[in-house]
């Protein structure tokens, strides 16, 4: 059986990141357009109503970012765009766009499987797909939209087809060197510390990243990063401790420390949680 590898645009030039999140003012009767990677989203503020129109391009790794707010009256969403209408009693015109991590674990693979030597550790860098949350203000804010910028493929993580959990498959490879990981507007980067305390080598074919438990940060250059995760294979060999290093990830090349842009979806658990190795590495 031939295996067709996931798309990985490492050969594409890496554009400068453009921070697209934040607050926007949208007067009643006007429309704004946000293109974030593969997603084009039009938001119209009508009296007592928000209308959201969207369409997604075919390229999950599209790096383009463009924001036009407000949009000229003649420009509007195409007829083919999908739409959502949200009614509200309030007439406020403040919008808040936030990036968020996926609502399930994300499975990523190295370009080719490798083994981590016994009593050794490496850093892995993984980029995972982003979701977009749109809030209508002012306080208390109402969530208008919580959807992926590009719908990732479903996948299954577990020892067999009867035990496990649904996850998303990442379309990019994990890297051993952060500089090899290109910037994508629709993705965030996670650093994973992989430690092998067992006597034998640790084969890494894929890794399930529990992104629901990770907070999202933005560095001074506008790149999105998550909290760092440590995965330690215990000496026994079959169990792995997963620990999230809470707080901003360590970015030595940034002038300022990364600042929080989205809280984790699930309440973070303190300390390491032991998982069966098969549930994390497949």
């Amino acid at each position, binding site marked *: *059986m*031939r*295996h*067709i590898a996931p798309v990985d645009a490492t050969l594409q030039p890496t554009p400068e990141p453009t921070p697209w999140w934040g607050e926007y003012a949208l007067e009643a009767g006007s429309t704004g357009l946000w293109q974030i990677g593969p997603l084009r989203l039009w938001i119209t503020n009508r009296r007592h109503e928000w209308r959201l129109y969207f369409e997604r391009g075919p390229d999950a790794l599209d790096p383009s970012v463009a924001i036009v707010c407000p949009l000229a009256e003649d420009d509007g969403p195409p007829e083919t765009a999908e739409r959502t209408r949200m009614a509200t009693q309030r007439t406020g015109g403040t919008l808040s766009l936030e990036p968020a991590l996926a609502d399930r674990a994300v*499975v990523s693979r190295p370009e080719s499987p490798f083994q981590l030597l016994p009593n050794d550790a490496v850093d892995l860098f993984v980029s995972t797909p982003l979701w977009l949350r749109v809030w209508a203000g002012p306080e208390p804010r109402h969530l208008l939209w919580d959807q992926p910028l590009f*719908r*990732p*493929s*479903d*996948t*299954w*993580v577990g020892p067999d*087809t*009867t035990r*496990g*959990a*649904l996850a998303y*498959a990442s379309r990019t490879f994990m890297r051993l060197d952060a500089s090899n990981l290109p910037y994508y507007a629709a993705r965030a980067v996670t650093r994973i510390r992989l430690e092998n305390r067992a006597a034998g080598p640790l084969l890494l074919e*894929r890794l399930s990243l529990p992104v629901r438990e990770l907070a999202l940060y933005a560095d001074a250059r506008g790149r999105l990063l998550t909290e760092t995760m440590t995965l330690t294979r215990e000496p026994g060999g079959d169990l792995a401790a997963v620990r999230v290093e809470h707080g901003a990830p360590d970015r030595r090349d940034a002038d300022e420390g990364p600042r929080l842009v989205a809280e984790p979806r699930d309440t973070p658990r303190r300390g390491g949680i032991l998982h069966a190795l098969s549930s994390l590495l*497949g």
Partner: protein
Amino acid sequence: VDQLWSQIVDFFTGPGLQHALSGAVVLIVGLLLARWGSRLTGRLAARRGSAQYSLIMRRLTYYVVLGVTLVVALAEFGLELSILLGAAGILTVAFGFASQTSASNLISGLFLLGEQPFVVGDVIRVGQTTGSVLSIDALSVKLRTFDNLLVRIPNETLLKSEITNVSHFPIRRLDIALRLPYHEDVDRVRSLVIQLAQRHPLCLDEPRPQVFFQGFGESALDLQLSVWAARETWFELKNALQEQVKTALTEHAIEPAFPHRTLYAGSPTRPLTVRVVTRGEADPPDENREREDEARTRGRS
């Protein structure tokens, strides 16, 4: 008449009325308590467990409270339970013969609840019927089919039948049969359909989509595309992927194989002569030739 009148007066003035009234009150309160208690335990059980667990707890509470109420109410009415139970023993024999089917269903229902091949909310297939389980009752299981019909299946039938639980596991395989003509490049078709599956977001990345070469058919090569999907999105993927496969095969000029049959008459067939005749140029009917043809046909028969 006087005797009857005196009995009626005695009933209303003596303890008889008091017993009847207190029995009726016990019965009404008990019924209300059974309904209220079963709803409460059902709600509490639903918070902690499945819909199945909630249903069982609701029914159990209802029947236990109802049973206790009946016993207390009968005692209030002045009836001795020992006599009733003695009579019930005799009745049981007669009743048992008359209600064999019901008893069998009742016991089968207990086995089904114990074994739990499915729970309320699962989608099951029994024989030709596929539907979502609405309730597991004492005598039967109620299914709602996808065309919104209520199907009642006796518990005894279920216990004896093969039941397929479609929604037991979180993921499910979808098989799409492909029939290709013998001259088609199998590798090309395999790559095409695997790529289609990999691009579809509802098709699971793991377990990987696969194409199985099922065999050499009578008129076609039989292939099968097998992909996996979450049980909630299985139907959506089935519709979308089959359409996409059809479109892709058409775009790549890959014709599906149609059933065909070659007839062999015992010797190599000579090519048929085809003569194109346009209107106006056709020869006038040749009566002699027609007569000759007719005579030849008669000679054969």
